[in-house]
């Protein structure tokens, strides 16, 4: 099946990924369900909230989410969820690295616990510090093209604009802004958050996003494994269409036999 929808690999910071679907690890009904859904999704890049993991090295059985993530199969990217400012985010990234996790970090700073919208000022500052320290930084941002440019100037590995607020399932509410970010991008653009349906993920890929990150829609689905497969297929379909080039949208019918054929 995948042969029919073969797509180019995704490259972030010199590392190549066969799948363009990134998956988050929160909100699942059990660690076992999460593990199976990740496998079903075909993802190669997963993100995990450090606040839920045990960093003591003591193998805490009550905070053992990392035990369910196969480091040979996925690049495990810690995220800074819970950080309310740049200082805290930087601290979390450093602690993750000290605990032996990869130096990739999904930078997310959301001081507002309700809509979990990212703080642009703190995100830029944290990105600057972490890039200087050698981290591969993937910042979660609002769909703000200027902020995306500023982040690329400091050396982030991707930008991750939100389609709509986390968990909202509203899809690409920020479509017009994301289109500008994609048009101007010097690094891969990953649409993160708000994708509630596979069709929305396909839409993001068709418009030129390099990848998408999905969590809630898979985690709370009645059957997370099947939903993970559905998203995987949608991402591949959307990317495949993008690579082939899409037909332009028109408000009028286009005659199959051109009206000016008699001139040929």
């Amino acid at each position: 099946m995948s042969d029919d929808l073969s797509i180019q690999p995704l490259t972030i910071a010199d590392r190549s990924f066969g799948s363009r679907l990134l998956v988050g690890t929160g909100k699942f009904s059990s660690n076992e369900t999460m593990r199976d859904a990740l496998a079903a999704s075909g993802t190669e890049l997963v993100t995990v909230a450090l606040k839920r993991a045990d960093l003591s090295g003591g193998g805490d059985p009550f905070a053992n989410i990392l035990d369910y993530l196969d480091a040979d199969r996925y690049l495990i990217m810690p995220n800074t969820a819970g950080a309310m400012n740049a200082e805290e985010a930087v601290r979390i990234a450093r602690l993750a690295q000290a605990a032996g996790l990869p130096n990739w970090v999904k930078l997310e700073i959301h001081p507002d616990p309700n809509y979990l919208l990212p703080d642009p000022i703190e995100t830029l500052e944290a990105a600057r510090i972490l890039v200087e320290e050698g981290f591969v930084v993937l910042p979660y941002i609002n769909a703000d093209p200027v902020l995306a440019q500023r982040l690329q100037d400091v050396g982030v590995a991707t930008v991750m604009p939100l389609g709509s607020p986390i968990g909202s399932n509203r899809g690409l509410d920020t479509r017009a802004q994301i289109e500008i970010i994609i048009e101007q991008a010097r690094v891969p653009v990953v649409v993160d958050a708000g994708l509630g349906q596979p069709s929305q993920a396909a839409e993001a890929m068709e418009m030129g996003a390099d990848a998408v990150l999905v969590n809630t829609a898979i985690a709370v689905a009645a059957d997370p494994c099947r939903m993970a497969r559905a998203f995987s297929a949608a991402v591949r379909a959307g990317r495949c269409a993008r690579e082939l080039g899409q037909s332009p949208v028109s408000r009028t019918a286009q005659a199959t036999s051109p009206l000016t054929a008699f001139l040929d």
Partner: protein
Amino acid sequence: MSRFTEIFDRLPLEALRRQSLDTSERTLLPILQRGRAATLADFAALISPAAGTQLEELSRLSQNLTRKHFGKTIRLFAPLYLSNECVNICKYCGFSRHVDIPRITIPVDQAVRESRALADQGFRSILLVAGEHPKSVSNGYVEEVVRRVLPVMPSVALELGPLRTHEYAPLVNAGCEGLVVYQETYHRETYKEMHPAGPKSNFNWRLETPERAYEARFRRIGIGALLGLYDWRWELIALAAHAQYLTRRCWRTQITLSLPRLRPAPGEFQPRHAMSDREFVQAICALRLLLPHAGLVLSTRESPHLRNGLIRLGITNMSAGSSTEPGGYSSYDQNDWKQTREQEGEQFHISDERSPREFAEAIRTQGYEPVWKDFDQSLVSSGTPSETHL
């Protein structure tokens, strides 16, 4: 932005309560169709007798909203009672100054031992609870407990007598994540009657506590009403208004709500205003439709049957295996987590006596994940990561 005390008395709470009782199906249906309560008037409609006949639909909407924001998870925590010494008279409370019970404030070492025992049960989040007693439960004492407990417990919250902002600040700096303060009743006359003596008799001072806590930079602030003192619909509308206000003003803080319900118990204070289980469930679902992002907390006051059912309907945070007596956990059997003696100094008697492990299993049975650890103070302030492990 004005303080809540400045706008509270202008809220049309009684009018909304009456409006709630008279809610018609015509008012209710558009709200259910939207699946959200946009205003306090919508909320009043959702806790109406008319909405009580639509409980299944209300539950479905609440479940969907909760899953979108919190997933299929329940965060677990345990209360750790430090002291039952108290200078207040609260007519309904087991710690009230007028009640004849053995009084104790446990030493810091014992608090650490009890935290370890709770950590062994799985808890990575505790709520330190104490009566209001400035001498025995001094700020210095609480601060020391927090500092000593943090290495074994990554998340620590407080439920103490209200303090000033500058008194909270050192506790936040010591590593406290959250603060819980219940108004008990939002009805001024009832409040006055229930709290005849002690600093707690100052209604406004208590009502402004969450704002002071926010200024001191707590990350999580819990509010609540003790249901049974006054008309539950009135209390719920006031609580919802308070939560709405705090959500706007304290935008960097997660607001959690709790609805401890007084139950009839022999020899104890009798609730004056009854609230049935169905009404209780309705209230929780209605709160979810008004406040989709708020944490909703449920304690072991409620029965196992009701708690099991509510796991899937909107609750996000639950306690388990709780003792409400200072030092109570020291008398628990460490294997099956059962009390080995009468808890004569307890604040109230719990209804759900299941051990933390039994309860975690009950959560799994409902298709949800029990989340023991969801915050780590060491990630956001200096110090080594918590050493919590078996």
